[in-house]
């Protein structure tokens, strides 16, 4: 087995697992679909990274951060809902991205390309993946409590605003990391599918969150093995493997 394959496998395991874990929290907060527009917002940055040959992750992260800042800024200027503003900004971001995206590399930006993963990507995935995992683990129960009742969490001494900020930064980091594996089109899938499948298997919070992590990892491993065997792109294969696990989970629904 070549080094590049092993690096891409490790990267996918870390990102897939942590995305599943983070997604389990997002589903309970009814924020599962946020990962979609955020991923799409990465396109202008990814396009620039491809043109000027710098790291796609960096391009994606800067682009998402810039998009989030614009949404926040517009929010202070109008009375429109965050949802509407996100719609406007993400559509504009995607359109802008397509204007500058070199068409020869469109596939890499849209659905990811694990054959481009190197040592730096793997190191980033391990370090940032672990950091996000530990942060989310730390805030998990208080975020659930705040979801049940923000007042209840605040009287218990939880700084809800701070926790929300940490949570959003974690989402942005994971979405940006995902781009390399599944492209900007599928960022939402790694967040939602493992958690949705795990929900069907679980009646307790610990089983649900750890289940989402494990299903995320299994989807990543199987998806990449199928890629090795079939030659089809790894991103869609990882998503389809997750979908298959989700379908199986329906028979175990608790």
């Amino acid at each position, binding site marked *: 087995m070549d080094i590049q394959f092993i690096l891409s496998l490790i990267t996918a395991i870390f990102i897939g697992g942590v995305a599943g874990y983070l997604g389990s929290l997002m589903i*309970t907060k009814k924020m599962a679909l946020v990962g979609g527009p955020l991923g799409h917002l990465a396109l202008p940055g990814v396009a620039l990274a491809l043109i000027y040959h710098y790291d796609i992750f960096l391009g994606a992260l800067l682009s998402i951060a810039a998009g989030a800042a614009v949404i926040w800024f517009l929010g202070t200027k109008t009375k429109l809902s965050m949802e509407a503003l996100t719609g406007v900004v993400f559509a504009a971001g995607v359109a802008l991205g397509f204007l500058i995206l070199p068409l020869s590399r469109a596939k890499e930006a849209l659905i990811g390309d694990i054959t481009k993963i190197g040592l730096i990507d793997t190191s980033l995935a391990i370090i940032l993946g672990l950091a996000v995992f530990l942060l989310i683990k730390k805030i998990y129960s208080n975020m659930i409590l705040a979801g049940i009742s923000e007042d209840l969490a605040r009287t218990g001494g939880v700084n809800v605003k701070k926790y929300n900020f940490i949570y959003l930064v974690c989402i942005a980091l994971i979405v940006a990391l995902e781009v390399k594996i599944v492209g900007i089109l599928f960022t939402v899938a790694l967040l939602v599918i493992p958690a949705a499948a795990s929900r069907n298997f679980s*009646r*307790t919070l610990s089983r649900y969150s750890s289940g989402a992590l494990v299903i995320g990892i299994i989807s990543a491993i199987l998806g990449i093995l199928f890629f090795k065997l079939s030659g089809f792109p790894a991103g869609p294969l990882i998503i389809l493997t997750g979908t298959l696990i989700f379908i199986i989970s329906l028979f175990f629904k608790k």
Partner: protein
Amino acid sequence: MEDVVLKVKNLNVEFGDEKIIEDLSFQVKRGEFFIILGANGAGKTTLFKALLGLIPYKGEIIFDLKNLKIGYLPERLSRAKFKELPISIKEFYKFKEDSIEKISEMLKFVGLKEQKFLEREPGSLSSGQFQRMLIGWVLLGDPQILFFDEPTTGIDIGGEETIYFLLQKIWQEKKLTILLITHDLNVVYGYSTNVLCLYKKGLCSGPPREVLTPELLERLYGSKIKFYKHIH
């Protein structure tokens, strides 16, 4: 002098241009069962939120308690929210308390005796059981002062009585200070030591049998209200 645990002076709360609470002053003594009475929209929940520091206010709110620990049960915490979550009662209680023994003890205290309740999902309880489960959760971590906002909303009449009975048991056995929002006059006469009738400035304050005159109740609720004092 009996010690005062909560002192409120010239409290004002506004939402935009609307004054919800105006120049309200009152105090709560240690170990009191203090009821806040008022019609819908009188500002009862707003008062609680101000006392708990959840919304901005003007005026003074002073808690005279060392290592202040507050227990709060908000209004209408719905079972529906819990139904969406894969969570056991044990896990929900673990947000506040690590010891399984203490968790089991608390569940027993609120009347959820059997061991099976530890693994049950809160969303699968009956409305009365659910509310008792929440009251137990509020009591975890040994709070000194408790805030209950209409804890019997949405519970059938039989269930209501057991909830109030439980609150009285907490008050008597744990010797805690309890502030309770209700519009149920039965509870006011049956359990409270002091009552605050709220309509912006506060219409009355004192022991219920002294301050709740028919005229005042009419002003408080805006229409003729029929109520006969219980004679024990």
